[in-house]
């Protein structure tokens, strides 16, 4: 089967899948059928002629791209994850020796850091869902976003879904030193630890794209170690209405949003992820889908991150000269703006748009982001201090303006215009008494590129809630 034929096949599957009806699962409230891949056309991956043209035009000869899935392992016996979809360590043989002298004996398809052996089999079900969304072979019920992706299976989470930061560090270094171009990290917690953070930093510095899930606690990612690391592509989740999922974490580190509610993927045999995660209201087996329960439906920013990792790998397959980090920026820059408008704390630059990214210019980018707003100055002369980022591939300038929330078109310029780029620093400080009248204001930071293209970031400010 030629690569072109695979693309035709995947396109036709998307078409048919979008009309498929639910055959199991669902519930009393689910009278409307849940299409298997409801999210595909939300991220510009539908079967419309436009996309097919885009793929045919820009992806005539997709190259294999290694994606490290650092997770609970993968079910490498799943029919939709055949060996063709796996990274195979060409330097290693199964002869009981460390043939490639990397300190890991028999690391043929990855490594199991939990048990310290070469068998990263998924005993929890989480990693298989992630791997399938990225790279499941065409022909199944839930084909992956990029059939040219090759999954490197690195198991750091145990059967209950927990794992050590030290194992994460070793796994990230394994991925970096064994040729992974994208690392998917659908894991985290309040702390990451310095050793783990340093390993992630090394990967980013080497041009590897590190995609992380924002988390599901509906809280600020500022307190969420991995997702808050500089340079990590942190992903929030959206639902079928393209709204931020209620559970998704938010914050200045959220870069992009992708579908993360009711996502169908591959189920590792013998697993029931929702049951083992200790869900209170759940009937065991209810999330399994299809004959023999080969598929599984779940929600979480984990799966939104996987969709972004898969899309990034697709960019790299189609545009092999990009680095991982460039592919990540291209995805962010070409994201589709969601409500509320502007770059914001909830969905970052907006919803993933693969079609736009495939044709985007990696040399062109405009950044605007408001990280925080605080009170400054003195009691007699209070000021409002705005921190954030404004930059562009050819920075032309930036300005900050404000409008009352109730009169959103009555813009008032505040602070001094900026002539130089700012990275995670002070973008403006202005007299607090400028904002007279209403309590609730919208702040907007607008970055302008030298060619006149602009990007706006917005921040909802409630003066009564200010510290």
């Amino acid at each position, binding site marked *: 089967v030629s690569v072109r034929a695979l693309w035709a096949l995947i396109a036709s599957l998307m078409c048919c899948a979008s009309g498929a009806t639910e055959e199991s699962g669902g*519930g009393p*409230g689910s009278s409307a059928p849940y299409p298997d891949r409801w999210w595909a056309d939300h991220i510009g991956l539908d079967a419309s002629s436009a996309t097919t043209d885009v793929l045919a035009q820009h992806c005539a000869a997709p190259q294999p791209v290694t994606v490290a899935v650092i*997770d609970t392992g993968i079910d490498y*016996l799943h029919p939709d994850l055949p*060996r063709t979809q796996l990274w195979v360590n060409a330097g290693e043989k*199964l002869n009981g020796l460390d043939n490639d002298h*990397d*300190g*890991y004996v028999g690391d*043929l398809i990855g490594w199991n850091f939990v048990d310290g052996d070469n*068998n990263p089999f998924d*005993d929890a079900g*989480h990693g298989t*869902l992630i791997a399938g969304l990225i790279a499941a072979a065409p022909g199944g019920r839930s084909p992956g976003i990029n059939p040219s992706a090759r999954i490197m299976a690195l198991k750091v989470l*145990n*059967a*209950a*879904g*927990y794992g*050590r*930061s*030290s194992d994460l*560090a*070793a796994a990230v*270094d*394994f991925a*970096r*030193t064994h040729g992974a171009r994208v690392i998917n990290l659908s*894991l985290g*917690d309040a*702390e990451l*630890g*310095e*050793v783990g*953070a*340093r*390993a992630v930093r*090394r990967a980013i510095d080497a041009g590897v794209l590190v995609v992380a899930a*924002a*988390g*599901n606690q509906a809280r600020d990612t500022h307190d969420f170690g991995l997702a808050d690391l500089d340079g990590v592509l942190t992903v929030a989740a959206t639902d079928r209405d393209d709204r931020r*999922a*209620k*559970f998704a974490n938010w914050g200045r580190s959220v870069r992009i949003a992708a579908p993360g*509610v009711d996502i169908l993927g591959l189920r590792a*045999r*013998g697993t029931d*992820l929702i*049951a083992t995660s*200790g869900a*209170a*209201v*759940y*009937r065991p087996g*209810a999330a399994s889908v299809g004959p023999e329960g080969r598929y599984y439906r*779940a929600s*979480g*920013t*984990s*799966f939104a991150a996987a969709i972004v990792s898969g899309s990034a790998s697709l960019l790299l397959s189609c545009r092999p000269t990009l680095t991982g980090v460039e592919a990540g920026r291209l995805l962010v820059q070409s994201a589709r703006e969601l409500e509320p408008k502007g770059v914001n704390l909830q969905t970052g630059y907006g919803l993933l748009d693969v079609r736009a990214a495939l044709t985007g210019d990696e040399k062109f980018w405009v950044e605007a982001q408001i990280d925080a707003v605080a009170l400054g100055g003195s009691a007699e002369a209070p000021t409002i201090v705005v921190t954030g980022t404004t930059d562009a591939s050819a920075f032309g300038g930036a300005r900050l303006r404000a409008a009352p929330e109730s009169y959103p078109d009555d813009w008032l310029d505040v602070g001094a215009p900026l002539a130089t780029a700012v990275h995670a620093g002070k973008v403006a400080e202005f007299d607090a008494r400028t904002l007279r009248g209403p309590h609730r204001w919208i702040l907007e930071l607008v970055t302008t590129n030298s060619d006149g293209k602009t990007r706006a970031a917005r921040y909802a400010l409630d003066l009564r809630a200010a510290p």
Partner: protein
Amino acid sequence: MNARCLTLLGALALAPAVLADPLTLGPSELRVVELAAGTDVEAFAARNGIEGFEVQPLGGGAVAVRFPMEEGVWRAHREALCSDHGVAGCSSDACLRDLGPETPAADAARAEPPAPVTEPAPEAAIFDAQLSGTDATAHAAVRVLLLPHRASLESVFGAANPAPSGAVAGAAGCPAVPGEALRGPRMASASPDGHLRLATPNGTHLEPGCWDVLVVDRCVSQRRPLSEQRPDIEPGHALLLVEARPGGKTAVGLEQFAASHGITILESTPIKALDATLVRVALTDPAGDLPAALGLLMQQPGVSAAQPEFRYQTSTHNDPFAWMNYGAQQTGADRLQLATSGAGVTVAVIDTGVDAGHAELVGRVGGGSDLTGYGTSGDRHGTAVAGLIAAAADNGIGAYGMAPEAKVVSIKACEPESPTSLGARCWSSTLARALDAAIALKLPVINMSLGGPRDPLLERLIALAASHGQLIVAAAGNAGPDGPPSYPAAYPGVLAVGAIDSHARPWPNSSRGESVAVSAAGVGVPVPVPGETYPAQLSGTSMAAAHVSGVAALLLALKPGASGTEVGLALRASARPGAGGAPALIDGCAAAARLGVAPTSCAEAPK
């Protein structure tokens, strides 16, 4: 997170009267440092008082070193430790978790209808334990999961064995996708009071070799084969130990209780060593609730212990190798035999029956009592073990034993699966009576080439025998390096013997572990066969144990005043370091020297 080790008190429900090993999960408080390439890890650990560390390679020669350290110690030493030479990163080893799934209950429209209320199905407990401590929040995170035993990657991706479609994720010989076959809970969370119980619907057949039990408290976990959690037991049978009392009236009360509770008393036999009576009973319903029955029986007057009837197996594989009687040379028995042939020493062989009429064993076998109820017999396994200990030398047939003029007392506690089978079954009750007999006979060496689950009754009798100076030599087991510990080999004080081949390489199927102290010949060794003149070649830790029992007999003949345990200690302490991960090699001459009775023949070059 507070510093604590999670201890499970009594990991097994099958024997409430006698708790199995407490299961301790590892320390939860780990720290991790990144050491730059070229840093001496050992020296770093020694400087900072770090013990029990693990090293993970990072890219470019750097390593991550993680180690347990309690919060107080960490706080006090953190600054110095983190600024030590070569430290590039330094932090607590955070516990991370997966970020999905979001609980469906968060989205009411997606919530599944509650399962219909049905009659609770009868359950069979797989795991039943009480967590220590009273912290309900800490207990809440603890879970127990039943997971398929994994196949090795080699079996799936090996060059000779490309992944077949529909291949099995479980271990070899397990039903395809065992996880799918099981209906019912595979996971349980601890209750707020710390009770952790995993049960499957009764009647669900679980092959112990196909499953693992994982106890997990967030990042701290322990995975064990189900075979360790659920030992092989005789269904519906139980053993009671009834203390002897003046007048012997307790039995009457027990009979009445049994009659009114549907319990049949099968047999009552005295265990003189314990001054008690062993009562074997059967429940009317073999699939009934054994733990509950044991709990009831425990409460009866005079009953001091109640437990399942565990099953044991002899430890031999029929695995012919090249003809070679290398064991005598390897253990030093050849050289000791120039000074003694073991005359005057008697070894107890607790096994299947021994063919006392075999030409190799004529005049050497005493005892012959049958404790199995199947009758006396001359069986392959017992005859092989007896022959390795005491087969005649220079009689023109077969090979020769390690101590060719020693005697063996055959105590038949195991029944072959078929008259010509090597495989055999033994039981708690027959082994208890066999040990009682061996203790009464005051035999210095007791050979037990068999293994099975941990058993409090046998543990007690073995400790008693050891305290009398008797040496118990046991087969390490044939479960391979990753197999569960085998008992009696793993009891303290027992000399557990692993098998090696003629090149002193470890036999791949030999069990390993801390308890396996020594090794001896056990691959393709020549043994007598009942009713035949020509020997067979057998492999197994059974054979290895018999070699050591024979050497022990030689040493006892050289030093008649010594006790069995004294000889055992000498054999253990003088063993030579093994190669390729094999336990230390038995060295009869070195042991003799240690006992101060090395014959001049030991100074000669080996034959």
